[in-house]
């Protein structure tokens, strides 16, 4: 049962930040697709709810060839999924959103809310970190930008200190780069039992100059596997290397067993997904 709260409905971002500053025991709601579930379970009972669903200033998608992509926090998953500019420049974002929950959830849930919720099984986190995203957060006192890989601290915990998510920024796509993401699940719309995102950038000779592999639901936060970067940078396409990367991924993580799979099984799947996503991203980068 959801406990009673006082409801705040700001009209503008400025009002929202001011209201948020005024109330310490206050939770922000926008899409609420995750928040309402945990509130119903009684896990969260704030005195105030700040509803920013109608704060239009945070609902935007902007792309610039140099600056990259900026998505406002209250942009819905569905808007991202259907964005032509995102499909053209960051197709992995569209394919990731397409498999996120269901259309109903995507119609109302937002990217900012998803990241703020910090579910380690969440889909956007690993993909955005692989794309080297930054997140802009702020409150009435000001804003700051944090690399997304530093944003998540623990299960359902971020670095935010009474701040709101304002914007996600993905740097401009590098030439000859590719990205891929896949989660392992039993049902098409489920969150991943485990997941892997890969990003590869090649130089003109086809040598890897940049690579990231980020694992989802493999620990308390998305895990960027740095040893894979050491392995692959400076190398050419080699399926044996991808398999080796998979082995590294299966070790450099802390998946927790539950009824959907043992730890051993999760490690194995992470290895398979890593291998596959590296290959896919690399092939995309080759063009």
């Amino acid at each position: 049962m959801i406990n009673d709260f006082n409801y705040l409905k700001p009209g503008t971002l400025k009002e929202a930040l001011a209201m948020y500053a005024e109330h310490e025991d206050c939770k922000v709601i926008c899409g609420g697709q995750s928040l309402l579930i945990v509130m119903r379970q009684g896990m969260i009972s704030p005195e105030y709810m700040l509803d920013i669903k109608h704060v239009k200033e945070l609902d935007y998608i902007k792309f610039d060839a140099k600056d990259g992509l900026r998505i406002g926090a209250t942009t819905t998953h569905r808007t991202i999924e259907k964005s032509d500019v995102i499909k053209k420049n960051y197709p992995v974002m569209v394919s990731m959103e397409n498999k996120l929950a269901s259309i109903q959830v995507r119609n109302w849930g937002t990217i900012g809310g998803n990241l703020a919720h910090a579910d380690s099984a969440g889909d956007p986190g690993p993909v955005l970190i692989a794309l080297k995203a930054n997140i802009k957060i702020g409150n009435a006192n000001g804003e700051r930008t944090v690399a997304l890989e530093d944003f998540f601290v623990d299960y359902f915990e971020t670095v935010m200190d009474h701040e709101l998510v304002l914007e996600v920024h993905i740097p401009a796509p590098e030439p000859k780069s590719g990205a891929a993401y896949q989660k392992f699940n039993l049902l098409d719309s489920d969150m991943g039992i485990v997941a892997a995102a890969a990003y590869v950038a090649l130089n003109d000779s086809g040598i890897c100059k940049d690579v990231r592999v980020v694992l989802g639901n493999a620990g308390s936060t998305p895990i960027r596997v740095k040893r894979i970067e050491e392995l692959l940078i400076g190398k050419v396409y080699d399926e044996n290397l991808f398999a080796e990367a998979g082995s590294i991924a299966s070790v450099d993580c802390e998946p927790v067993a539950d009824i959907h799979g043992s730890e051993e099984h999760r490690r194995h799947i992470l290895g398979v997904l890593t291998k596959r996503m590296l290959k896919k991203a690399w092939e995309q980068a080759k063009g």
Partner: protein
Amino acid sequence: MEKRLLTLNVNGQDYELYINPKTLLVEAIRDHIGLTGTKRGCDTVSCGACTVMINGMAVKSCSVLAMQAEGMEITTVEGLEVNGELAPIQKAFIDNGSYQCGFCAPGMIMSAQALLNENKNPTEWEIKEGIEGNICRCTGYNSIVRAIDGAAKGKYTEAKS
């Protein structure tokens, strides 16, 4: 806790409510306005029985605060028929036997209608994706897919069919 005045526009009609702000949209629709076509089947935003349309988009009304839906056009299953004439998607469901116990049907039909509003010519996979958020325990979904496909192809647009 301060109760709030709220005007909800449901099926073209404004309703004035005075509610606890934690009231979910599905509760406002079912208990306060009295439209019981929209159902509930879970507590984890999983089953889709509560699906309505908000500004033409399919949304699960169990995970929307009623307060958030103010100023938006909400459509429930009761709002699809016009002067006793069923919407093509409803006729399609009947013609294809796309429901059995019927409990998931209102939510399923709203998802279907929202899909058709957005996509006039969906592929089979797009149809399945369109209802992916709706669980049906009875039909096995294929008859629902056939109904949506038939409705998309204009099979049910004639009046009095």
